């Protein structure tokens, strides 16, 4: 008898353990299944019979630049725009002139300097940049910047081969073509600078001038250099008119000992070349 009740109790306990396991597990799993089925159904409904959706909360205005002199600011914000030179193409370290200049500036002015965004895209022409200046991201970045750095125009003037041909070879380039492109390109540059200024009235605009990428090409060296000079002069004219813009000259950096400062594509600077550009920018900003 004693033993019997012992077994009885033990049996009830054991029976209970799997019964409760099953009840708990089964209920939980069933609840999960129903939840997922609801989710699945909702996904189908949302795909084929979408509702208006929730109201998107009011946007908080993105920060804007305060203006005033760079020396008086606790932190300097930089926005960079333009073509492959601003991207830093050819720099094996990936820094380009923008980062190098920002670091040097931080050291020189003894305050934090931050690149808000480097929005440059390789191969960009001035007219394309003008379109992009309407993009929210460009607007945001330029609005809050204390310094806007840009390179543009090189592709407007020197881009000939469209199907992947290397610009550095320059074989298709004729001086007459360069000459005919100049006025159109100059207008675009004017529009770009005006647009930037309209987005941010106080930022210091640093335009990095062109250099002659065909300096070692005997055939058109002189003509190309001439065009570059006229372009830079026009940029300088625009900068002076603006009052808060600077053109940083680079043409003289790539006229001698080219191999030391150009990357292997013979067109873009290498890290040493970018470092020299950055040096000049820092000098200009101080």
């Amino acid at each position: 008898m004693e033993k019997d009740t012992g077994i009885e109790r033990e049996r009830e306990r054991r029976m209970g353990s799997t019964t409760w396991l099953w009840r708990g597990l089964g209920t939980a799993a069933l609840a999960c299944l129903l939840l997922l089925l609801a989710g699945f159904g909702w996904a189908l409904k949302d795909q084929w019979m979408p509702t208006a959706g929730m109201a998107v909360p009011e946007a908080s205005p993105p920060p804007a630049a305060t203006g005033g002199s760079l020396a008086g600011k606790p932190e300097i914000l930089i926005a960079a725009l333009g073509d492959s030179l601003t991207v830093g193409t050819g720099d094996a370290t990936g820094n380009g002139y923008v980062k190098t200049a920002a670091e040097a500036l931080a050291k020189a002015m003894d305050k934090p300097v931050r690149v808000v965004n480097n929005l440059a895209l390789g191969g960009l022409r001035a007219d394309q940049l003008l379109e992009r200046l309407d993009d929210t991201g460009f607007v945001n970045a330029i609005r809050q910047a204390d310094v806007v750095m840009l390179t543009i125009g090189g592709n407007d003037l020197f881009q000939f081969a469209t199907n992947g041909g290397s610009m550095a070879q320059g074989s298709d380039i004729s001086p007459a073509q360069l000459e005919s492109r100049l006025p159109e390109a100059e207008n675009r540059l004017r529009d770009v600078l005006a647009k930037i200024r309209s987005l941010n009235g106080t930022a210091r605009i640093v335009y990095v001038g062109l250099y002659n990428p065909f300096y070692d090409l005997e055939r058109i060296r002189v003509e190309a250099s001439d065009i570059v000079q006229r372009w830079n002069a026009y940029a300088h004219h625009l900068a002076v008119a603006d009052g808060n813009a600077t053109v940083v000259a680079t043409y003289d950096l790539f006229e001698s000992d080219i191999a030391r400062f150009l990357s292997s594509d013979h067109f873009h600077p290498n890290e040493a070349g970018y470092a020299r550009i950055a040096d000049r920018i820092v000098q200009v900003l101080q």
Partner: protein
Amino acid sequence: MANLLALVQNETIKVWKKKRFAVVVLILLILIPVFVYAQMKIAQNSAEKFKGDWRAELQNRITDNTRALGSDRIPEEWKKWRRALVQQLQYYLDHDINPQTPNAVTFTRGFMDNAVTLFIPLMVLAIASDLVSGERSTGTIKMLLTRPVRRWRILFSKLVTLTLYVSLIIVSTVVLCYLISGLVFGYRGWGEPIFVGFQVSGADVNTSAVHAIPQYLYVLMQAGLIWFASMTVAILALMVSVLVRSTAASFVTMMAAIIAGAILTNMASSWHSAKYLFNVNLELTSYLQGTPPPIEGMTLGFSLCVLGLWALAGLVVSFAVFTKQDILN
């Protein structure tokens, strides 16, 4: 004739006592913290770089992807994907919504998007591959099938059990993901808006049907879609488990199929008829996200149909074989 519920109870208890679900939870408990840590590092890195300016960060992503579009070395298919991504990110930027607010819900959402092709199928297989072949390799099938119960009822009870466990796995993944990542990223974010309804056609994203929904709804829909894809995997695994005697062989067969699917998806193949394979259609959540499908012409409806047909075929084969099969050893 024993009732079906009792059979389901049997199967549920067996899977539980065999500690299959415990293994799944253990895998989750080990892997989720790894991903949380990785995500935390990324978040720290970008916080340092952008000082919490998410707009700058988002624009940076747009710029990076746009720059990649200019490269000749990137295959055309990937460019398509990036182009769509850029347009989507631009949409977020234009509407001033941060698509990646750092919180547990966003992390969970991202984790589930990535888990649908490999990780969740893997966990489903841990249970499904063993369901029939496990009984065969241990010989217990002989006891099971000599009881006065029709064979289709036995298999049906296994199928129901599998459905229950697939549901448990998915919900557990979401819950564990939320709980663990919340320790680092905070438990907020259920109500934050997210855009759905991007329609990708070719390289263009049509935003006319885009609307904002709160993240909790997104996670719910996402889990529902993952459930559907997982059920297809589970049913096919059940079929293989019926056909193949050893659990290992059954698991490896299904895993190979899943991995092959993941590779095919990434190759974004120009092999068009591959879109009729089940394993290329598992990433249902991409339709919710609005990322371009791996093969041109795939839509949510298409993928659901393909998965549904595969699952149906799997069921027919499973039941036909299981009810007729001779148990020879």
